[in-house]
């Protein structure tokens, strides 16, 4: 059929082709395996910092909302509290899952807010993130009665949302991760809407937002 020589060349070409294919597969496999970990946000990334810090920020909102939910006298406040508690707890779960997916710990090696430029200066004197309630304010909320529960919750949560929105804005400045941006943008839209709602409720209840 073929001459021996021709056949040998053919065979060698085939073998080389096979080798190339194998190497190409190896490289492709390696690259495919590695790429997710290269592309995933790192330990000091804004995304990881946001996921960690916003989880803590959210957790306090959940605590305040759940504290108020059974005691609010105003129906709109009670509904808002319920909505905030469920929504933010769910978002905590999403953010914690991100960290797991990125092979990162729930706790970073850097202080909170270090992912933001000048983040350390954003902390309150108590070392709290922007908008968070102090221990004393939480106690006050716990001890409040009647309509005061509704007012105090709206005041504290309004400020809490504003602090959260500030952190979200920083994330949106820094991050190109679409999933993270999407959730952050959703949080912002939602919380901005609720800020307006709190203002409306406060004025209906004859109260003012907190000064700071």
């Amino acid at each position, binding site marked *: 059929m073929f001459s021996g020589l021709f056949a*040998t060349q053919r065979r060698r070409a085939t073998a080389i082709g096979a080798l190339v294919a194998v190497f190409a597969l190896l*490289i492709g496999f*390696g690259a495919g395996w590695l790429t997710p970990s290269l592309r995933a946000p790192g330990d000091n990334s804004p995304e990881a910092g946001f996921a960690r810090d916003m989880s*803590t920020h959210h957790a*306090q909102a959940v605590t305040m909302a759940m504290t108020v939910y059974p005691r609010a006298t105003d129906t709109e406040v009670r509904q808002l509290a319920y909505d905030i508690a469920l929504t933010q707890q769910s978002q905590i779960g999403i953010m*914690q899952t991100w960290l797991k997916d990125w092979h990162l710990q729930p706790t970073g090696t850097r202080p*909170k807010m270090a992912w933001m430029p000048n983040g350390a200066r954003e902390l309150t004197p108590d070392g709290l*993130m922007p908008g*968070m309630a102090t221990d004393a304010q939480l106690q006050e909320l716990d001890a409040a009665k009647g309509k005061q529960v509704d007012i105090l919750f709206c005041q504290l949560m309004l400020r809490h949302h504003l602090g959260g929105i500030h952190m979200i804005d920083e994330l949106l400045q820094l991050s190109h991760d679409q999933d993270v941006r999407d959730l952050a943008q959703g949080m912002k839209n939602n919380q901005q809407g609720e800020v307006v709602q709190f203002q409306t409720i406060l004025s209906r209840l004859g109260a003012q937002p907190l000064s700071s």
Partner: protein
Amino acid sequence: MSISTPQAGGNRRPSKAVAGGKPTTGAKAKSDASAESDAPAKTDAPTKTTTTAKSGGKSGTTTAGGGSKARTAPGGRPGTRTGGSGGGRPGGGNRSGGGNRPPVVPVKVNSGRHWGPIILFTIVGLVAAGIVGFGVYEVQKNNQGWQDKADSIKGVVDYRKTEPNLLKAAQHAYGKVNYPQSPPVGGVHNPNWERCQGDVYPDQIPNENAVHALEHGSVWVTYNPSLAKDQVDKLASKVRGNDFMLMSPYPGLDKPISLQAWGFQLKLDSADDPRIDQFIQDLRVNASMETGATCGQDSQNYVTKTGTDPTNLGQSAAPTAAS
């Protein structure tokens, strides 16, 4: 492999599978008869259709089927044509077996190596191996579990290993509980947990409520009340405002500082010890026995009281009174 067989009797498919078909040599040696009987059935099988060992005809089964020496037949598979004596080697060079085939000119295989492709493939191969190796390393490093990381901290006691029963006993109970560790690291606990949202308690808190906080994944920082204030402040700065953290003095503590997570403990002399941050990084939230459980939730569930007696919020009409 097949490269080394120069004869190439029209076999254009040097597939490995074929070369692998060699085992036939062994098989045929043993049972010629059975092999033969099988032959017709598995027509396409490139293997054991060998009829008689000597004939070496383990050629393309399809063609000649039986014992004929038809191995040279057109369909002949590469590796197969080497005679029966071809000792396992695929494409074994016993060209002598090529009986009725026209002698083939040995093709130069060794001479004039193409160094270009060889170097190229070597480099490509090394790069590929490097990429895969790096990937493996990274994955391994990242996948080291938090428990392994915690265990590797010098001085950490992992009670999950030494006292597995302690961790199973995660029941609720009212009243005082005697814990084998001091401070406790897990076990039966009060239905209400001490709030652990970065709370820095100025006074001792009840073990029974603190252990419930551990169950939810918090790290509990305790210190001997004699610890210097600047050291206490340093510890507090690691706790305050951080969810899943709580801190309190612990009278009678046998070391200046002790850190607890569920099943883990680390006793230290100084708040400047870098192992404190490691402990927190590896165990905070991770050590939770109830994934997703919170440190706050609402004041009908958590407590913030200090003292030594457990605080029970939900104990209504309870005959199981606390001590």
